[in-house]
């Protein structure tokens, strides 16, 4: 079990690097394949709740390290109140929620129905991106939901979901190598 978790963490770090080289797919509304969240979600269904929380913590930590933009201290007499950005660590909470969602169908995954989990990764990514967008809109005090955003979120979820069988295949291989039972 421990060797499997360590391997998962290694895969998570690898996905961070791979993520850097995946550009937006311009003809599809700038959609992306979100490899790092995908590894967290697929990994979540193969481990216990404690393992999932470890993955969510590390995944969220790495994600925010890549994406949060820190602003310098600004003169309040000139600039608008700087309440308009999310704080470091919010992704950990979101990843944990998505992890619990994935854990909900773990019994079926253990029965070998990996395709249900693959489908759920798409739903989880969709919810994650919607939640992230809502949070960002909320802290800025404006809610924008135009077609561009909806298409981008939808296509990103679809492309990420389509990549999930590859991640599941890798997880099965890693589990075999580590002697970890991820299905009955």
């Amino acid at each position, binding site marked *: 079990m421990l060797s499997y978790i360590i391997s998962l963490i290694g895969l998570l770090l690898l996905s961070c690097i791979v993520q850097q080289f995946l550009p937006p797919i311009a003809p599809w509304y700038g959609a992306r394949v979100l490899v790092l969240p995908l590894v967290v979600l697929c990994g979540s269904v193969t481990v216990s709740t404690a393992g999932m929380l470890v993955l969510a913590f590390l995944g969220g930590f790495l994600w925010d390290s890549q994406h949060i933009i820190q602003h310098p201290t*600004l003169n309040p007499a000139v600039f*608008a109140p700087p309440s308009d950005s999310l704080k470091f660590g919010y992704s950990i909470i979101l990843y944990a929620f998505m992890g619990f969602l994935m854990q909900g169908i773990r019994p079926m995954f253990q029965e070998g129905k990996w395709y249900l989990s693959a489908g759920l990764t798409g739903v989880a990514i969709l919810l994650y991106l919607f939640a992230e967008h809502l949070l960002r809109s909320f802290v800025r005090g404006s809610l924008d939901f135009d077609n561009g955003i909806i298409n981008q979120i939808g296509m990103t979820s679809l492309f990420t979901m389509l990549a999930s069988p590859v991640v599941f295949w890798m997880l099965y291989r890693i589990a075999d190598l580590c002697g970890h039972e991820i299905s009955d």
Partner: protein
Amino acid sequence: MFTLSEDSVRQVQKTYYSSIGPMISKGAKAEKFAHDFIQEVEHSSDLKRQLEQSQRERDRFKLIASRVRELEGENNELRSALSFQKQTEFDVIASRVIRRQPHIWNSTIEINRGAGEGMGVSLCVLASNGGLVGRVSLPGDNVSSVLLITDEESQVPARVEGTPEVGLIVGQRTAHGESPKLRLTYLSKNAILKKGMNVYTDGRGKLFPANIPIGTIDEFEAGPVYGDAEITPAVDFNNLKTVFVITDVTGD
């Protein structure tokens, strides 16, 4: 047969030739036709070969022309960059844009200069036409991240040329591939602004030096408390290749 006279033989031959004459004549025509046909086929194959060769050469020239255009564009851009670096009143470091839009939500670019080359947090970044691009948000060892002024989290104190109007430039979300727009907020609601008026940084807050071009006014909307104006940026953000980071603001 051997005893036939010369006249008889001649008569026989005459009869023979007069009988086969038309056939020889037609055969000769057929032979000519066949000969012409074969020549035509050979000529066609030759023409086809020549056509194929011409097409190959045309494709090659097209490729060369496209490469020349590309190099010409690159050359113009480098000339413009060099000219900007010579003319600007600031100390600047030229940097190449190595990645665009690495974030899902934020408008950022990554440049090939890091902390070792003088990059620091909040340094101002300009385009080769002198327009404001953004500021360094995260200087790494070898690369740095630049937050563009088109990002929703960006704020730039600005003034409208020829008027007493000052406000804050903020980025606006646009669909992928669309040209980004900016919004100048906190203007007075009675401001008299016309389309095409220039907008510059005003230096308040010390985050950006004063008098850097930001864009031009597109449309002004008076609100109940403040007025807002839509701004077309001075910089073509979709084609940014080289940017300049101001390392020492001597012109402020």
